[in-house]
């Protein structure tokens, strides 16, 4: 009878996890194919007109396994990835990609989590407010604002925030993750977390200050979808019979609103996986705009260097990340909605 007995939930999680594998495989295959479209081979393309002795070039090709048949390359690389080996850079010869990614990933994770949290908070408040004021001027204004928010071009919006809060008001820093004068002992690489873990308050405040503008950029742009979904759900829930039943039992408005929110929130959760993916796309633009050293700006740097193995590795890491998030979202959904049977 108890809803959360470990057996079915564990099975549900395993099934969901298995369902992610084809998604990641398909993306891996796609990236693999795309990178084989390059005329000649990636080494030649990356080197361009630079001269490198033929024997070194040959060694690079062998090291990357590019002389082997395609299907061997396909499975070899895949096996490597599963062991955390993303190959080596074409530009800085011999440098393992996984080291770079490991270095850069926490910054993206931190930015994404903050941006995501902000977008949900902004979306929930504005959506609820619009639902409560349904049909009013505020409601239609919020509706238009949510559309505009979605269409904001992230680098532009980010630069406008930098201009206002950085250049004119001098309130917040416009780039980087931490001021040079602040020292922080890294543990996880997520600076706000590290600062808390080491009880380093100045570093925490400094890290938060650096986070505000980039995560607000992402948060506002991504909030529009939530605003609209919450508005629709909330209007439906507020008009539902059980809300009236709560009121008829004399439950205070604040509590009734909370119960309504909880109901309206469930469909929002199902959307979060896709939203997070969109957010990661936005993070690439945000990181470039705010000189944020994450895997998004890493990708862009490697694109201009034509470091194809690094590009391949980054994309695959993104694919794993997206898959993992959608798994987490599925689990949260199962936990908060008692109607889900697993």
């Amino acid at each position, binding site marked *: 009878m108890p809803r959360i007995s470990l057996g079915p939930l564990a099975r549900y999680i395993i099934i969901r996890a298995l369902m992610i594998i084809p998604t990641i495989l398909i993306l891996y295959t*796609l990236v693999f194919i795309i990178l084989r479209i390059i005329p000649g081979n990636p080494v030649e393309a990356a080197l361009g007109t630079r001269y490198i002795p033929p024997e070194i070039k040959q060694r690079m090709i062998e090291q990357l396994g590019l002389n082997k048949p395609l299907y061997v390359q396909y499975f070899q690389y895949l096996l490597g990835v599963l062991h955390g080996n993303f190959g080596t850079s074409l530009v800085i010869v011999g440098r393992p990609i996984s080291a770079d990614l490991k270095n850069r990933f926490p910054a993206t994770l931190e930015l994404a989590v903050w941006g995501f949290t902000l977008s949900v908070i902004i979306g929930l408040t504005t959506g609820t407010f619009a639902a409560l004021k349904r049909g009013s001027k505020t409601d239609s204004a919020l509706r238009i604002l949510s559309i505009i928010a979605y*269409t904001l*071009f992230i680098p532009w919006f980010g630069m406008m925030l*930098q201009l206002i809060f950085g250049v004119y008001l001098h309130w917040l820093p416009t780039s980087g993750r931490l001021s040079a004068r602040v020292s922080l002992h890294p543990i996880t690489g997520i600076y706000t977390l590290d600062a808390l873990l080491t009880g380093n308050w100045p570093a925490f405040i400094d890290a938060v200050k650096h986070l505000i503008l980039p995560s607000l950029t992402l948060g506002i742009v991504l909030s529009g979808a939530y605003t609209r979904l919450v508005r629709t759900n909330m209007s439906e829930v507020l008009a539902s019979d059980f809300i009236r039943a709560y009121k008829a039992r004399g439950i205070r408005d604040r509590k009734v609103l909370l119960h309504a929110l909880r109901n309206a929130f469930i469909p929002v959760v199902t*959307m979060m996986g896709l939203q997070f993916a969109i957010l990661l*796309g936005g993070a690439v*633009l945000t990181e470039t705009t705010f000189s944020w050293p994450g895997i998004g700006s890493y990708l862009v740097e490697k694109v201009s260097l034509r470091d194809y193995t690094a590009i391949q590795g980054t994309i695959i890491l993104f694919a794993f990340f997206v898959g993992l998030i959608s798994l987490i979202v599925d689990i949260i959904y199962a936990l908060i909605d008692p109607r889900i049977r697993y």
Partner: protein
Amino acid sequence: MARIVGRPIGFSLAGMLRGRYPGKKMMLTGIFIILFIIMISILAPYISPYPPAQRSVPISQLGTPQPPSWKHPMGTNNLGYDMFSRILYGGRVILYVVALAAAISLGIGVPLGLVSGFYAGKLDRILSVTMDSIYAFPGIILAIAIASVLGPSPKNAAISLSVVYIPTYYRMVRGKTLEIKEMLFIEAAKSLGLPDRITLLRHVLPNVAPIILVVFGLGSTDAILTEAGLSFFGLTVTYPKPDWGLDLYMGKDYFLSGAWWLVFFPGLMITLLALGFALLGEGLAEKLEIRTER
């Protein structure tokens, strides 16, 4: 949503202007914005005060961006290019790329969706999983990867965008096709012995058409923002070709020292164009009573 079925879709301009319907204001505003931007892009050679990629200031001012003035309403950049002229020209590439990408995505995504939904077999399952995987992946990241391999050019940018947006069209069309297939009148058409091709074209496609329009509006919004991203990263055209996304990137190094006009206007135009399509899509969705995912 079954209500869409059988409703005639008349999109004459006169019909759109007449009468009251939900979403009208949004739709017309969106169309107005889009037409305005198309118009200035076409007329750019005739109305721009200076050539877009030529020095328009005295040599003495070179190297320092000049703020907006009567002579240069949107200022000039460090090379002395007139920003107003660059803005007028700057929509040409993005409009071309997005139109081409929309045509490719439509041309591939819609037939695939129709056939996949109609025959619902093994092929359908494989296609669905593939399309869903691409759909669930951040579009701009994939587009960057593809464009970086193909090399920077408008055509390659359009191909990259298409790979990303074919799944959007495919998914919506397939879903709708499945729904319509279940409906009685298709059964009736089948029992009459009509070839599948005729059933698809005469009965399924007309009912899927409204959805395609909405996806076009909303999908193009995403496509514009993604293409602007590609331009921003230098994956569409090379400087000094006038392009809003690229100009925004070039202004990035100067605006922190106060040259706001180098980034404000190009970015505003990108957002405005995206807003135009978003309003069109939203208005259409409301008029046709289609619930959108976003």
